[in-house]
């Protein structure tokens, strides 16, 4: 991967293991990205990725955090949590796989589409996990601004 450019903005958001506030970080991230003048399509994708990651931390873990890093050429979202971890990463990447409890389904979640949706809205997506320890996800969205600002393409595409 091309070396990352200098961070223009960085912020750490704690995420609690409760549903009351789940989704707050995503809306805050969207506001920050918009105020930094990040392209609307990138804001949209980052908002979706962040929301799915945030919901998973709230639903399945003992809490964690999300780090937002904005660079000239990309937006990065780093998710980390304090467990329970994921035994089979290939399995959770499959659309439809879910261990969501009934109460989560009653809230309108638990279709097993969050992680596939995060991957689909990212240009780079990496997941690491250790059972009993926790999970780390790095999602990268390149700020390629095609029509509007003339072909600043993502490296490697």
């Amino acid at each position, binding site marked *: 991967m091309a070396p990352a450019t200098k961070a223009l903005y960085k912020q750490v958001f704690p995420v609690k293991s409760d549903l009351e506030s789940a*989704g*707050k970080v995503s809306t805050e991230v969207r506001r920050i990205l918009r105020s930094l003048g990040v392209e609307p399509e990138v804001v949209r994708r980052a*908002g*979706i990725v962040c929301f799915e990651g945030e919901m998973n931390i709230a639903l399945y873990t003992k809490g964690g955090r999300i780090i937002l890093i904005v660079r000239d050429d990309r937006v990065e979202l780093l998710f980390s949590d304090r467990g329970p971890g994921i035994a089979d990463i290939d399995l959770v990447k*499959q*659309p439809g796989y879910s261990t969501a409890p009934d109460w989560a389904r009653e809230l309108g*979640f*638990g279709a097993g*589409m969050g992680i596939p949706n995060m991957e689909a809205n990212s240009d780079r997506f990496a997941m690491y996990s250790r059972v009993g320890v926790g999970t780390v996800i790095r999602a990268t969205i390149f700020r390629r601004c095609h029509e509007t600002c003339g072909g600043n393409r993502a490296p490697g595409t």
Partner: protein
Amino acid sequence: MKIREVARLMGAEVLCGEESLDLEVTRAFAADLMSDVLAMVQEEGVLLITGTVVPQVVRVAEVMSMGAILFVRGKRPSAATVNYAAEVGIPLLATDKIMFEACGILYSRGLLPAKRKALPRENGPRD
């Protein structure tokens, strides 16, 4: 279709966003599963028709830049949820009609369905 027209056809109560009723919703997407909304809606300004009333519904609509939310089956979100929607400028309507009837009426009056984004891997090779 104007949000005002949606409210009229639904006999809906306007929970918040009175000042935005003359804005248009582009198309509509009906689901109780927020997972599907997050994975499938692609345009902005879409009307979300749902029977799910948790606070995250408004956040989903916000993240997806949706135009308004119509709650069906007589469901009402909490006052805190309504206040949050008012704050972020998402109009909320509530009707006693069931989802099928609400959709049928709006569709017959010309409100178009949202385009559905293919699921990740849906178009890929089956493994």
